[in-house]
């Protein structure tokens, strides 16, 4: 019996920010990153039947996204006439089962800092995924997007004191979650 289930109706709420952040750490163009995330969801939907439930939905979507990112770099490189990346697993059956060949990693920016930032980003998103949805939303809007208190309150129809209570709970939970490895 599969351990993980698949539910595309929840993908955007649960994984869009995580996938976008994963992509933006590897491709600095926001518009392209957004398109790749969208393509990933659509590709995931098409190949849902290949989801075996052995990995989590998020891991499975990331494996598709990785391929999309590589494809993006291949396209750029082939436009320049110097394609360096080859992928042999391209049939519909293996969508989402992508295996990495021994090729140069196009998104390895070599700098240790970048790698650490991306690990920290992953840790932050892991902690965010443990928060109740509303807390995570408010925290992201306020802390990551830097949206003004008043705007968030209007958009989510909450009072400023509500917002600060939510922020306080989210910050406490986030700090506890990150404490072990990052503080």
């Amino acid at each position, binding site marked *: 019996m599969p351990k993980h289930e698949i539910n595309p109706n929840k993908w955007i709420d649960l994984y869009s920010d995580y996938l976008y952040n994963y992509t933006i750490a590897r491709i600095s163009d926001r518009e392209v990153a957004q398109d790749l995330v969208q393509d990933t969801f659509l590709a995931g939907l098409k190949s849902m039947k290949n989801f075996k439930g052995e990995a989590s939905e998020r891991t499975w979507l990331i494996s598709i996204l990785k391929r999309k990112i590589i494809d993006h770099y291949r396209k750029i490189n082939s436009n320049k006439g110097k394609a360096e990346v080859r992928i042999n697993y391209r049939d519909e059956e293996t969508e989402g089962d992508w295996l990495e060949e021994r090729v140069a990693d196009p998104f390895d920016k070599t700098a240790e800092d970048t790698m650490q*930032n991306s690990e*920290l980003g992953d840790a932050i*998103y892991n902690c965010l995924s443990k928060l109740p949805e509303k807390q995570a939303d408010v925290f992201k809007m306020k802390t990551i997007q830097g949206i003004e208190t008043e705007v968030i309150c209007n958009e989510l129809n909450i009072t400023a004191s509500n917002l600060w209570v939510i922020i306080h709970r989210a910050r406490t939970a986030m700090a506890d979650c990150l404490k072990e490895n990052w503080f």
Partner: protein
Amino acid sequence: MKKQSFLFVSCDEAQHICDKAQYDEASPWEKFKLKIRLSYCKITRAYYKSNTMLTKRIKESKVECLDRASKKNMKKELDKAIKKQVN
């Protein structure tokens, strides 16, 4: 009802000021009151330490997320594709 002190704040209030300070939304007077509380309250100090560390780590990570409008559009497209697949 307990009368609010002019200079001294409760632990909860100090933590609230500390939260606001992370977003530059605490007034200089509030920050001063927080400093006083920090000088003698262990709990506030511990909260302040982990709270400022959280801000530091978030900044370092350069994490980003999608804005609500983009997410809404994405959802619309995916919903369309889901409906198409079902039919």
